[in-house]
């Protein structure tokens, strides 16, 4: 197989509150011989909030990020569900509306850039599954996670709106019963846990303005996984990870029950199965300790 090569849009959390996510992304890419060219010029995607304030500006900034991936002639890979949503949504809107695209390009021209619409945008989870291939991963597993029940937590913005998902990625994902992360758990040797909250919201985006709603959603998710015998959870989204990993106290108070589970980033799970060390994967950066290693 030709070596896989992507333009990596890290998003902001990977450089701040989830350093372990950056470390594990790079560690897994090394193991899989995937080349990632980091888009160091990229700005924040606005995290689904900037567009509430200024829609056009949000489009321009996201189009600029994509333009850099296009300059490399590469598919853009995101490692955050909300980055994926905002970037792919920008692409979707510009590609289907030439008038809007022209307006955005008029601005980008001021800094010598152009959005063409030539780069695809996919989440790293699907780069691993669709492009690299589950069967190949399975063959490379040296330390299977066979002793663990692992609850997949998909995160909203990778699976909804499903139209956007299906437009960006090779394989469809059923928004009501997604399977990609389950398949990846199995490929890594683990047991996938079925539970109701696997495709539900973690509440991250209203953490500040609606803390009770946010905490209940986090609590329900961890409780659902716990009640179905999960030893740990795994998620492809650093924002879900922040909620599930750092907010267990508020979550427990909100649902009136003590809940807490170790939560892995998708990349950390793959990394462990492929034989990366806990240090390489940044496991010490979790608030809820990963106590099984």
């Amino acid at each position, binding site marked *: 197989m030709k070596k896989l090569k992507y333009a990596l849009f890290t998003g902001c959390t990977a450089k701040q509150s989830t350093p372990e996510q950056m470390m594990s992304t790079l560690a897994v890419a090394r193991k899989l011989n995937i080349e990632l060219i980091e888009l160091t010029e990229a700005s924040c995607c606005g*995290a689904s909030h900037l567009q*509430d304030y200024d829609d056009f500006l949000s489009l321009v900034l996201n189009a600029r990020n994509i333009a850099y991936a296009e300059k490399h002639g590469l598919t853009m890979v995101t490692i955050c569900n909300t980055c994926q949503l905002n970037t792919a949504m920008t692409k979707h809107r510009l590609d289907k509306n030439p008038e809007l695209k022209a307006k955005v390009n008029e601005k980008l021209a001021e800094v010598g850039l152009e959005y063409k619409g030539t780069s695809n945008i996919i989440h790293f989870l699907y780069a691993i599954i669709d492009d690299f291939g589950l069967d190949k991963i399975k063959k490379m597993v040296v330390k299977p996670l066979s002793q663990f029940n692992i609850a997949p937590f998909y995160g909203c913005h990778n699976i909804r709106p499903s139209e956007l998902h299906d437009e960006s990625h090779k394989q469809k994902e059923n*928004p009501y019963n997604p399977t990609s992360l389950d398949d990846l758990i199995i490929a890594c040797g683990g047991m996938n846990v079925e539970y109701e909250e696997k495709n539900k919201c973690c509440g991250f985006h209203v953490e*500040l303005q609606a803390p009770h*709603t946010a905490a209940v*959603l986090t609590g329900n998710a961890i409780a659902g996984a716990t009640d179905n015998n999960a030893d740990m959870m795994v998620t492809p989204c650093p924002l879900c990870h922040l909620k599930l990993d750092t907010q267990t106290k508020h979550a427990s108070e909100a649902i009136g029950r003590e809940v807490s589970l170790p939560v892995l980033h998708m990349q950390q799970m793959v990394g462990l199965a492929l034989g990366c060390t806990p240090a390489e994967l940044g496991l010490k950066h979790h608030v809820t300790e990963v106590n099984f290693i």
Partner: protein
Amino acid sequence: MSTNKITTQKVNFKVFRFNADEDYLPYYEDYSMDVTSEEVVLDILNRIKWDYDGSFSYRRSCRHGICGACAIKVNGRSTLACKESMSTMIEYFGNDLTIEPLSTKRAIKDMIIDKADFWEKHAAVTPYLAADIDECPTCENLVSPHDAEELNEADLCIQCGACHYACPAVEINSDFFGPAAFVAAYRFEADIRDSDAERLINVNEEKQGVWDCVKCFECAEVCPKDINPIEKITKLHQMAFKKGVAKNNVATRHAVGFLHSIKKHGVLDEGGLVLYSEGPSIVKHIPVALQMFRKGKIIMPWNMPKSDNLDEIQKLIKSSSTVKF
């Protein structure tokens, strides 16, 4: 459809049953049927009533996706029974299907629920045109096609409630108006003839308003009319800023804070955003922040990363900003 071959397969249904007048608790009844690929969910409800149990109750009227009466849940997914094909349901969920009302806690009889909360919230956003219109007009009140497009299909809502009862924010916060009410609010806010000054303020209030939407996109996924309620919610946010009715609170500062951060660093300054949004209330985040700090999850201001070519970003912010707060 007609070119496809009709196929038949066995499907096991677990159906929610409850009669508030007779039962203390709901229970589930099992039915097994051969289902053809041409059937819709409503056909199954009909067959349960006609072939198995005449007392089985559900709402339906038009059978054409117009009246909005027949919305129920299949395997937890809100769906319009007369429009949803069984083959899609089988494709999504396999051959074991659970049929429930939109909200089990609001059930009156089987699929029939008390939708009062939905209608109260609908009424609360004043879903009608407020305009001074001459009682004896001499010419028509024309709306140009361009202006009519602004409604963005919001006027196609059939008030089926599918989105409302799929919304986690409604489920947790009973004050939250919910996606359908916001669609209705947007329908009239986007109408150039409307002059209601209160509505936009009302749907921007804390607790009940648009800012409590968790951005899960459940509403966009389930709407049988492809109305995309969260898109309308986003537009209501934008309108509040554009029309100057956005209050200075944690929610609005959170949105604006992104701009300040991007202007300064290109990337988001996570700590700075929380501080900007919360103001003095930031103290309540200190315990978690300390835990995070100990795990190397918090960057000191002097170590804040910056985007390369930050000047480009700043230039674009200057030239492309369309709103002032």
